[in-house]
């Protein structure tokens, strides 16, 4: 009887014993989880993602909870929607339903800024390969430069699932830091004269038929060029088609609200679940964060430089600052442009032009991932 009671009591303290004997990485990650929760709740840094990720991180690092073992709660979420790439794609339907491509359609050449804003992906890919990361891991790290959480998760979960936690947290952290990272680069690369270039009001010249056909045509064209990216582009354009056709408002609202919210919760928890201390705390995690930072800086550099080129080619009709919005952090990057533009001329309204570049960046980031995956397929690496 006494032996049974003692055995039962010993079972109660196993977690604590583990934490003190071999749980130092877990303790560190419990602190990291706490920091993520603090950033999400107190500083409101991407709270919708960082709160579930932080809580998932805390849950998985409490020893012997087995939440990421087969049948565990977090493993179930992971298998439900990350291992099979479902969650990021469902989020893309919601993003498509929320996005107004109108400003981009008014001025289609701005889409090229969305291409320039992906330079960081390919630049970082080279550096990651030079540092000795295997090809598929290098691709997953480089995709942080897409500045697009779902794209980063989609690619990483397929080709380097062991890096999912680090890549996702880096991607979302840097996205939220866009207002801090971009302005110094924008200032350094532009002259005072370029910063005050006025672009005029965006004229309304797009018919509803064009807006309706746009998602179908984009899906078709990009699907034919880079078929491996079709799930990404197809889902974002499905959401946008539902928005523009106007006859499935219930589905549109569900996509941008209920479905996106539920999926975000499960996705965040499952990503947090990949941040178990013994697996996460490695030198390569620091390298991933450093490379992600390089990627986003180079996106901004290339975007602004391309903006300068467009400014020169159009005889000063394009403000180079909008080039920095050619990334996928929507609408944050566009707001940064507006704030920076008004800093030098209070009567300069760049927001709608920057929104065009920013939605171009959304398409550009998906396209860059699609091109990269199709190239890898062509090279026989996937």
């Amino acid at each position, binding site marked *: 009887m006494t032996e049974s009671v003692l055995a039962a009591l010993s079972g109660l303290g196993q977690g604590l014993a583990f934490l003190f004997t071999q749980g130092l990485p877990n303790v560190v990650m419990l602190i990291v989880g706490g920091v993520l929760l603090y950033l999400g709740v107190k500083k409101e840094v991407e709270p919708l993602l960082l709160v579930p990720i932080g809580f998932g991180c805390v849950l998985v690092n409490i020893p012997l909870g087995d939440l990421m073992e087969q049948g565990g709660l977090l493993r179930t979420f992971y298998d439900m929607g990350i291992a099979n790439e479902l969650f990021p794609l469902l989020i893309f339907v919601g993003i498509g339903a929320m996005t107004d491509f109108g400003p981009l359609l008014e001025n*289609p050449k701005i889409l090229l800024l969305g291409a320039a804003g992906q330079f960081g992906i390919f630049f970082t890919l080279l550096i990651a390969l030079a540092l000795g990361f295997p090809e598929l891991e290098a691709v997953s790290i480089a995709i942080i430069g897409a500045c697009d959480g779902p794209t980063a998760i989609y690619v990483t979960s397929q080709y380097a699932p062991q890096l999912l936690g680090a890549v996702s947290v880096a991607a979302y952290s840097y996205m939220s830091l866009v207002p801090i990272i971009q302005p110094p680069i924008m200032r350094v690369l532009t002259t005072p004269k370029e910063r005050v270039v006025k672009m005029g009001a965006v004229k309304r010249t797009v018919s509803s*038929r*064009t807006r309706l056909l746009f998602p179908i045509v*984009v899906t078709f064209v990009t699907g034919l060029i880079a078929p491996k990216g079709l799930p990404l582009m197809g889902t974002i354009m499905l959401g946008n088609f539902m928005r523009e056709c106007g006859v499935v408002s219930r589905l549109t609202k569900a996509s941008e609200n209920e479905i996106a919210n539920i999926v975000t919760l499960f996705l965040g928890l499952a990503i947090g679940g990949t941040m178990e201390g013994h697996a996460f705390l490695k030198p390569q995690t620091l390298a991933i964060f450093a490379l992600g930072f390089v990627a986003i800086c180079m996106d901004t550099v290339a975007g602004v430089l391309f903006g300068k080129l467009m400014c020169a080619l159009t005889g000063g009709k394009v403000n180079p600052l909008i080039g920095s919005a050619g990334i996928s952090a929507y609408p944050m990057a566009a707001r940064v442009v507006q704030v920076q533009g008004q800093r030098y001329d209070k009567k300069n309204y760049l927001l709608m032009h920057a929104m065009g570049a920013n939605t171009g960046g959304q398409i550009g980031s998906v396209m*860059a991932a699609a*091109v990269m995956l*199709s190239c890898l397929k062509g090279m026989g690496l996937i």
Partner: protein
Amino acid sequence: MIVGMGGTLVTLWILSLVMNLLKKVFPLSEKEGSSKAAASQGGGR
């Protein structure tokens, strides 16, 4: 890097051409234009 960045740039350039083509084939009708203008000026109420 060249194929990836070049491929992205060329694809988006093609898309911008397609978007221009769509705008030319399906221009804003006068009726649609006037209703949009009215909406943007807060008209119709």
